[in-house]
């Protein structure tokens, strides 16, 4: 069993609960998040931050995911926020820096709530639905869905390929040669992709 094959944690951070936020359609949640994140860029005052905080808190309580799951999602900010805060302090002074950092943390928290309450499959379906209006410009939503499904299915296939290449590399004593790993991996990937394309064409999927 090689080091690439594990592929753990592919299912995301979804926390199953029975809540209004969980039941809300994924497309609606994503659209709302997009609107809020653009609006947040205009927030310059404490009242704006307060309104955003109330919104985040309300969604957090309603979602019933619990503070711990939310804090785990916010962990990457532990390094980022102090650095950003220092830059803003230096550029705009302490008051403005606090507002700007607060709005950043709140925005990421809101996005985290969408992640915690939405299954990957729901998002994929929402993307397929969202692609429907793009029919006008020639996008076929069912094709979008197929590409995404194939891409997900390719993960274990390519992980196995990476393991094979890694073993072959070790057998020849080229463990540290990145090129001896990357070139066969990319060529193998392209071959597999071409074979998959042929299989799809043979079934009338591609044109």
């Amino acid at each position, binding site marked *: 069993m090689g080091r690439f094959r594990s592929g753990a944690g592919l299912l995301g951070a979804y926390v199953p609960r029975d809540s209004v936020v969980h039941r809300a359609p994924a497309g609606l949640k994503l659209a709302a*998040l997009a609107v809020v994140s653009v609006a947040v860029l205009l927030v310059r005052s404490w009242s704006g931050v307060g309104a955003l905080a109330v919104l985040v808190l309300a969604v957090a309580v309603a979602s019933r995911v619990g503070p711990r799951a939310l804090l785990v999602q916010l962990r990457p900010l532990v390094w980022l926020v102090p650095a950003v805060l220092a830059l803003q302090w230096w550029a705009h002074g302490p008051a403005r820096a606090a507002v700007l950092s607060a709005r950043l943390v709140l925005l990421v928290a809101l996005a985290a709530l969408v992640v915690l309450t939405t299954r990957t499959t729901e998002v994929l379906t929402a993307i397929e639905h969202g692609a429907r209006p793009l029919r006008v410009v020639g996008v076929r939503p069912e094709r979008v869905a197929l590409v995404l499904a194939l*891409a997900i299915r390719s993960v274990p296939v*390519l992980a196995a390929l990476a393991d094979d290449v890694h073993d072959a590399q070790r057998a020849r004593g080229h463990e540290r040669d990145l090129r001896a790993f990357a070139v066969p991996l990319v060529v193998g990937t392209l071959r597999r992709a071409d074979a998959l394309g042929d299989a799809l064409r043979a079934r009338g999927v591609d044109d």
Partner: protein
Amino acid sequence: MLALTPAISVGSALAPITLQTLGVMLAGALLGWWRGALAAVTYLLLALAGLPVLAGGTGGVEPFVGPSAGYLYGFVLGAAATGWLVDRIRGRVTAPKVFGAAIVGGVAVIYAIGIPVSAAVAGIPLWTAITGSWVFLPGDLIKAVLTALVVAAVVRAYPPAGPAARRR
């Protein structure tokens, strides 16, 4: 040729995290500007759906609204630009030629979109964002070199992935 796109974008997702721009450059160089851009879009949609394919093994919506969101959107144009330039290589596909395309598409274009967005989202002056991004430059230059070496070798081993085959 539809299937090429997801395979490559997953290839870049498998690579250890910080190599994501390497995937962008490789996708553009080996798939051409249009399929390269589609591969980048596929990659971003998978990340959006919550698959942990982004830097640091993250995924989900947060990175798309955070300070580095611009770099993610830049991947699409970056892959397209790299591919467009590689498509214009005449004669043998050599590492220096690919390196030039990767620097413009995989580094310059991505920074040109990523830096202003991070300045806006993090609320810092544009100049500070520019100077702050220097730390990523050495890594990205190494990735451009790697892209060049890998692409030159891959096109030799598998000519259908070369720009000459795409022109036909």
